């Protein structure tokens, strides 16, 4: 009984600290700033959804199955542009990921100590180079150089549907090479140049956090450097590698100007990555916004919304994978 009474009297105290008016003001202002940013962000998302809704309601499910883009005739869909976007991003990732992992390994494991800071800065700088510069490079330099590779791939691997090129005759020496330009492949390579530094800096960050104790343990057990990397660094950095790749993928999906400069737009589902003619959501918007009627604008908004949702899913998946991986934990 006495114990009960004591427990009742001994309630947890209410913690209270009055920090004064200036502090309350500060909290108010800071919260206001956060709310302002939140409002802007929600406005962007909300407005996109609101304006896109009109077109989405009109089109229904045909929005995702139609390849043509003719909103004023009420015949439009994102089948072609989404396929094109995914293919361009896929090509970019195929080129970017091995390069990024190799460079990240080099910087964190092989490079001399004095060089490391310089290399890290170089990679970060490359992530800041404007995409129009990469686009110029792709348009005026890479495009012409890739024709040989594209022709070789389509000649010997044309039996794979992805590498097939319609209208190309490898036996005709006078055949024009334009059928191999302005393709998904070239655009993907340009986008790869843009996303590799981003992927590389995420992966390098994670690799350099691999616990020193485990590294030395591997060496003490007689591992070679590659053995150590395979048994310690790569398993530790797996989450970072996947997350970094997906961050790069998100960026690649949304890339506009580099793609827009390279490709010649087509509005059919174009699975042949080496053939001239490609499409992406972002270049569709850049191409059609100017002469759009209100309904066409709504359709473009819907396409933009679809793109945004795609990058959103990819980015959230990436950050949750990075957060859930062991990266950042140390060994005891």
């Amino acid at each position: 009984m006495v114990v009960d009474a004591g427990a009742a009297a001994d309630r947890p105290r209410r913690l209270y600290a009055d920090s004064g008016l200036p502090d309350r003001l500060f909290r108010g202002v800071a919260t206001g700033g956060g709310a302002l940013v939140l409002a802007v962000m929600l406005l962007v998302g909300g407005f996109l959804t609101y304006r896109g809704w009109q077109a989405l309601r009109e089109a229904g499910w045909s929005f995702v199955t139609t390849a043509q883009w003719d909103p004023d005739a009420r015949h439009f869909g994102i089948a072609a542009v989404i396929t094109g976007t995914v293919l361009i991003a896929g090509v970019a990732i195929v080129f970017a990921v091995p390069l990024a992992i190799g460079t990240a390994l080099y910087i964190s494991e092989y490079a001399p100590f004095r060089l490391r800071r310089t290399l890290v800065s170089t990679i970060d700088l490359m992530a800041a180079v404007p995409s129009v510069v990469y686009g110029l490079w792709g348009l005026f330099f890479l495009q012409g150089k890739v024709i040989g590779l594209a022709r070789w791939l389509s000649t010997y691997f044309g039996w794979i549907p992805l590498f097939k090129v319609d209208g190309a005759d490898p036996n005709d020496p006078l055949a024009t090479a334009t059928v191999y330009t302005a393709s998904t492949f070239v655009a993907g390579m340009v986008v790869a140049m843009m996303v590799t530094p981003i992927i590389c800096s995420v992966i390098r960050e994670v690799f350099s956090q691999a616990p020193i104790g485990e590294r030395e343990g591997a060496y003490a057990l007689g591992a070679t450097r590659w053995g150590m990397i395979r048994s310690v660094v790569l398993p530790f950095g797996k989450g970072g590698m996947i997350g970094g790749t997906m961050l790069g993928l998100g960026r690649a999906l949304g890339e506009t100007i580099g793609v827009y400069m390279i490709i010649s737009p087509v509005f059919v589902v174009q699975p042949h990555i080496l053939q001239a003619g490609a499409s992406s959501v972002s270049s569709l918007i850049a191409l059609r916004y100017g002469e759009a009627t209100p309904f066409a604008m709504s359709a473009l908004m819907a396409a933009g919304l679809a793109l945004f949702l795609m990058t959103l899913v990819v980015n959230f998946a990436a950050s949750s994978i990075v957060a859930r991986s062991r990266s950042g934990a140390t060994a005891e």
Partner: protein
Amino acid sequence: MTTDATEARGATAPGSPTPAPPAGAAPTGTTLPDRTAVAPAHERRRATTTLRGTDVYAMLGSAAASLSLTWLFFTRLAPFSGGLGFVVFAYVLFLALYALLVSFDENGPAVRDRIASAIVHSLAVILLVALAFVVVYTLWSGRKALPHTNFFTQGMKHAGPLDPLTVGGIRHAMIGTLIQIGIALALTVPAGLLCAVFLNEVPGRFSRFVRTVVEAMTALPSVVAGLFIYATVILSLGVPLSGLAAALAISVMMLPIIIRASDVVIRLVPGTLREASYALGSPRWRTVWHVVLPTARSGLTTAVILGTARGVGETSPVLLTAGFTAVTNLDPGNGPMVSLPLATFEFVKSPQPAMIARGFGTAATLLVLVLILFVIARTIGGRGPGELTRRGTHRRVVASRRDQKRFAERAAARASMAYSGPTTHHVQSPDPGPAQGVDGS
């Protein structure tokens, strides 16, 4: 035998057999075993370098072998051709030969180690060379336009597409870029920093939600940001295609980038510094203003500059919102205004060589601008919060000494006052004063 004697003998007559100690001599000091007989006199230091001669020979040998074999294949044996094919063929051959050479005197894991090392090195070289090439290519292609002074002092008002490079320039685009990025910075820096402070200093469910939304908005494709501003500000509110609309589009894109980067930097401020400030009795806003922000200053500057570099280079939001003009427009609220990336994009659309040269010149200017911004960011914020340069350390030491002197003077003054003053009954302990020492700058 004493140690001295052994050393002396070893120094004078290395390698000579040690004579046996006299039988009758009794040991006087510490008896040491005779080392000279066991150890060879010329013991060489072990080489601790990881690079060995055999490795270098194996690498050079396999490189030479693969080059000559590839040359043989491409010119004599097989109907191969093409530069890229040559490189790929030679590289694969090099890896195979290298593995073979190393396997002569190493075991399996060591061979795999060497091959992996070769592959990692070549991947890094490919990437760095490709990236450096993009930069050099742009600057090199811009060499035709850049030497003309009029390229920087004139707009394109009087220059047609067929005019040579001696007429017309990118003054309008440079001014446009400065105005647009200026407006964007004036909007995003206060909002972004305030939001980052909010995320860190007012924790709770609401700030977690804001952080999630900000993270989501970094995924917003830049063209969609442009489309948003085009649909709201231009179509709905009736603002014309202008520099202001472009600046707003850039702001929508830059805001999440700056918030995320500054959020990370502010989170890195050591908790002990904050707690020390609270322990000295300073309220939250004073702690933020005098401790958190100064500590994170270099990182915050970096975040802003990196965000600026991204914003300066964005083409697609500007493409949708700024319009295009050939004349210099100083009024952001009225009439189209061009920026450097947009001018590049529009120049290279033209098939005329002079216009393409102008496009490359503009791209080179933009690239140099980004490079400068980046170098500034690295110089200011290359180090984490709390890490100081030598000059910074010196400044802080001087400030600390000044404070110490001031406190001592104040304590002395109070002590003398207490001594002379009739009303004071006890000598006050030296008061360290308000939290001025915390700031340190």
